[in-house]
């Protein structure tokens, strides 16, 4: 949800720029677009569709997660020269590294969860368990590898949607905005 906000902001900004400068969108030719769909559909079935997500054993989820992200990494590298893709690839690499080093799950610690939901006591978050049906597993700080790449940031209190996110998520969002912004560039800028 928080990442989709980047797409909405980027799209609104680039639409406004195109309208103000009387430009039309010029879409970059991307290589292997099909790979995104092939790589992400298993993830959607695991994390976004509750009906199928419940039926997939947890032991298979790290494998699905890692192979899916590998497919996306190949796609990001193949399109690395497209504006924004270098940032999206960098963010993806950051998330991939922390996930692969922590057993195929994005780590989140009790302190972050406590900041996210201050009304619940710290020990209500059980270490070693999966957080809902998402990509996160609750880990102790001492057991988390590359903790600074984990879901350690929390949306501000005034923000209506409570979410924890990683540095990789921030970089991916910046990349998405840059990519969308590049759609309304002047013709000569695109070369």
């Amino acid at each position, binding site marked *: 949800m*928080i990442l989709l906000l980047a797409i909405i902001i980027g799209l609104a900004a680039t639409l406004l720029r195109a309208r103000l400068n009387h430009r*039309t969108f010029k*879409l970059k030719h991307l290589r292997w677009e099909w790979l*995104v769909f092939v790589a992400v559909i298993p993830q959607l079935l695991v994390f976004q569709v509750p009906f199928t997500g419940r039926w997939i054993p947890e032991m298979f989820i790290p494998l699905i997660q890692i192979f899916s992200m590998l497919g996306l990494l190949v796609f990001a590298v193949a399109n690395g020269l497209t504006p924004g893709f270098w940032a999206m690839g960098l963010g993806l690499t950051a998330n991939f590294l922390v996930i692969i080093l922590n057993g195929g799950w994005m780590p989140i610690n009790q302190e972050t*969860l406590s900041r996210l939901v201050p009304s619940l006591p710290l020990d209500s978050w059980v270490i070693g368990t999966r957080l*809902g049906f998402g990509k996160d597993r609750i880990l102790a700080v001492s057991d988390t590898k590359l903790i600074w790449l984990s879901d350690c940031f929390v949306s501000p209190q005034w923000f209506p949607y409570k*979410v924890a996110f990683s540095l990789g998520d921030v970089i991916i969002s910046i990349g998405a905005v840059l990519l969308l912004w590049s759609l309304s560039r002047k013709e000569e800028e695109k070369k």
Partner: protein
Amino acid sequence: MFTKIMTSAQLLIRPMDVRLVFFLLMLVMFILGAGAPSATGH
């Protein structure tokens, strides 16, 4: 009649729009797959 309908349809659904929708769909899919934010639902 059929040609008229097709011309109107082509004006409404231009290839550029279809490509843009596909591009945005691809971007949304990429972001969902690459990102890992977590919400608690509280």
